[in-house]
């Protein structure tokens, strides 16, 4: 059942409030809607939510839809920022528009294209879809940003996703070239990785632009 974009936004906010911030409900004012809101009524009709006074509860029936909405939003962010290179406020705004179009399998295709990412560019988790579970059970090797690896993991550098040619040149001259094996040593406070017999430290912004084929 496809709900309206406005209703999707409400579901998303409810999911974040209840699942990630540990609340049991969200206030109408935090959702930014009035009690007579149409989208709210739509969700109420579908029995996805329960309204009690000025508090809105996410019902069990609404959870799968809310989960997938958050997933689509964060996939859209990844697509915008990693592949289309639209960053910052504009990237966020465009992702908000794009997410409402990712239905009927488009989300699965994008998720596969992005190699089943597990976090959004802001570091929040992307709820896994069926395609992610399948890829995991088949043991598919994914290409992920360095920020998605854990310390001690490694792989082969797949590509560098930076749009800035100077940055790209810097990385390449340090020996960070596609096809080179890389081992991640630590992730906090900076990313430290080893290429050949040398160790390098980079910040999170740069680490996000190095993509590694996990192995």
């Amino acid at each position: 059942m496809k709900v309206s974009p406005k209703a999707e936004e409400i579901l998303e906010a409810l999911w974040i409030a209840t699942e990630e911030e540990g609340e049991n409900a969200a206030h109408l004012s935090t959702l930014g809607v009035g009690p007579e809101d149409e989208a709210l009524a739509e969700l109420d009709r579908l029995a996805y939510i329960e309204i009690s006074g000025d508090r809105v509860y996410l019902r069990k029936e609404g959870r799968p839809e809310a989960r997938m909405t958050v997933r689509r939003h964060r996939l859209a962010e990844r697509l915008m920022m990693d592949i289309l290179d639209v960053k910052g406020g504009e990237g966020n705004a465009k992702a908000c528009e794009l997410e409402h179009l990712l239905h009927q399998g488009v989300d699965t295709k994008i998720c596969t294209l992005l190699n089943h990412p597990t976090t959004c560019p802001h570091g929040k988790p992307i709820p896994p879809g069926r395609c992610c579970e399948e890829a995991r059970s088949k043991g598919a090797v994914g290409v992920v940003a360095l920020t998605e690896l854990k310390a001690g993991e490694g792989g082969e550098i797949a590509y560098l996703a930076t749009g800035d040619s100077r940055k790209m040149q810097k990385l390449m001259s340090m020996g960070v070239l596609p096809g080179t094996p890389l081992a991640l040593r630590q992730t906090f406070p900076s990313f430290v990785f080893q290429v050949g017999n040398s160790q390098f430290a980079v910040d999170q912004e740069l680490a996000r632009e190095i993509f590694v084929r996990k192995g």
Partner: protein
Amino acid sequence: MKKSSPSTAGGHPKVILVGNPNVGKSVLFNALTGAYTTVSNYPGTSVEVSRGFCDLQGSRFEILDTPGMYSLMPITEEERVARTILLEEAPHLVLHVLDARNIERMLPMTLQLIEAGLPVALVVNIMDEAERLGMSIDTELLQEKLGIPVIAAATARKRGVQEIRDLIGSHAGQPRAVFGYAADLESDVRRVANHLKGDYRLSTRSLALLLMQRDAEIDSLVAKVEGAGYAQVVEAVNAVVFERRVDLHLRISLERKRICKGLLEAVVRQRPLTGLSFAERLSGWTMNPWTGVPILLAVLYFGLYQVVGGFGAGTIVDFLEGTLFEEAINPWLEGLGDHYLPWEWLYELLVGEYGVLTLGVRYAVALVLPIVGTFFLVFSVIEDTGYFPRLALLVDRIFKRIGLNGRAVIPMVLGFGCDTMATMVTRTLETNRERIIATVLLALAIPCSAQLGVILGLLSGVPGALAVWTLCILVIFLVIGFLAARVLPGEQPMFYMEIPPLRLPQIRNVLVKTLTRMQSYFLEIFPLFIFASVLLWAGKMTGMLEGLVGAMAPLMQVLGLPAEAAAAFIFGFFRRDFGAAGLYDLQTSGLLSPVQLTVAAVTLTLFVPCIAQFLMMKKERGWKVSLGILVFVSLLAFAVGISLNRMLLWSGLLS
């Protein structure tokens, strides 16, 4: 270190040292020329070209040490400096120095140098550490494959230096080997190179490759040389770039990597290693925040507090100042003065209260030099272990908050030695925004070692005072940095840094480096000390000093300090450590309560930079910015002093 412009030294054949950062070019330069240029375990120590001479078999050679570069296509200012040398000089020999452990990563640059038609020889350096890692490198086979001389060396251990000397003396001829890229890339290169008709130092093949990678500097060089033919070159380059529609830089890098892989086959053998060495494990601990912060605190405690504060500012100063000057030299000088100097003004100028000999020389030699010297010693030891890059990655996140990045750790730490030197080093930061923020923070919240030594000595007698002082300075540092990052517009800097292995410092290098730094420090500040004591003398003779002290009395009153403290603040104008030392005199005569002492120490630490630092700020940042910083820092120092005084009195802390 001998330095001269290219024109005056044109007579001798030139040998140019090139290579990645931190591979030991400067060590080799020192070994060849017998000169000293600063060497450390920190990438990017050399930021300019050093020139020296080397006499071999009756002829003289000029040796040029260049800043590290990662490839023939420069990104940073230092790399540009290094390449300009290759573009402008006509070398007898180019020595490419590389790190044996990373030969696979660094060999592509050898290819680029050969390709450019330069007379190259390869020095495979740091062989000792590579062998310890279980690597063996067959340099004879590599020499055969590359077609250029290859020498295995460990220059820090003097290994291979004689062979390099022999090579410089005897080398002649050009490399002949040509390494082919994939056919399609080769035809692209030819397409561009065919249009290059002018006379260049580097081969047209090499220039064509650089043009295809959009090297702006080469582009304007070609435009100048080709004149009318330039349009055709541009057309060819654009056509190639458009047809490929991929990043040619990446393509070319991958091709070079493929060639190097082939070259190194059967040359490099790696024996499997078991377990991590102690140095590697220690390296991991320094970078992990849980263990890294305690290690940092230990380094600060032992390095700064014990050695600089305890030994330098305590033991050595007590001996020089207390025993040597107070008991022997000064009474003797005063005696001489009583005898031979009947004119009061001259007596006062030379041996009086603010006399050049009794105050200027005493402060410079007995008080400041031992403290700064021990600081430089500790700094050199830490620098050579390779600890600073690890500190940089540890503090990067915090430094980003204050508008800097981890790379700024070097000027900041150096500031604890001498803020004037540190202000000069802010030049190495990438953006103007970072340079201004670093300059402000150095002027405000980083006490230099002389000041720090005296302050540690002063406050350690009063329980709690040191903690209050540390907390105040730390909070001011972070808050002002945070606000400066908000106020000043600009891009967030990127942080990337090579982490060199931890090494045991070599005593000789540490000592030479410490002495070189002390020497330049002494040459720079000694005249200022004399200048400052002459000014103070003039002030005393004309009564201006008393007037100034009187004028500052109300301010001292607001700060809750005795009127005499004004003299310490006025000293502070001339040298920050003068100010701290003035405080020391007040403390020993028992004029200050714990609260007063803490307030005075905090205010003085934050207060105006010394005259030398101010002049350096002016030189690096210009009048407008440096005057702005001066006014801001003075106002803030007194505002903080006044509020701290109120807070301490109100809370009853320390009293």
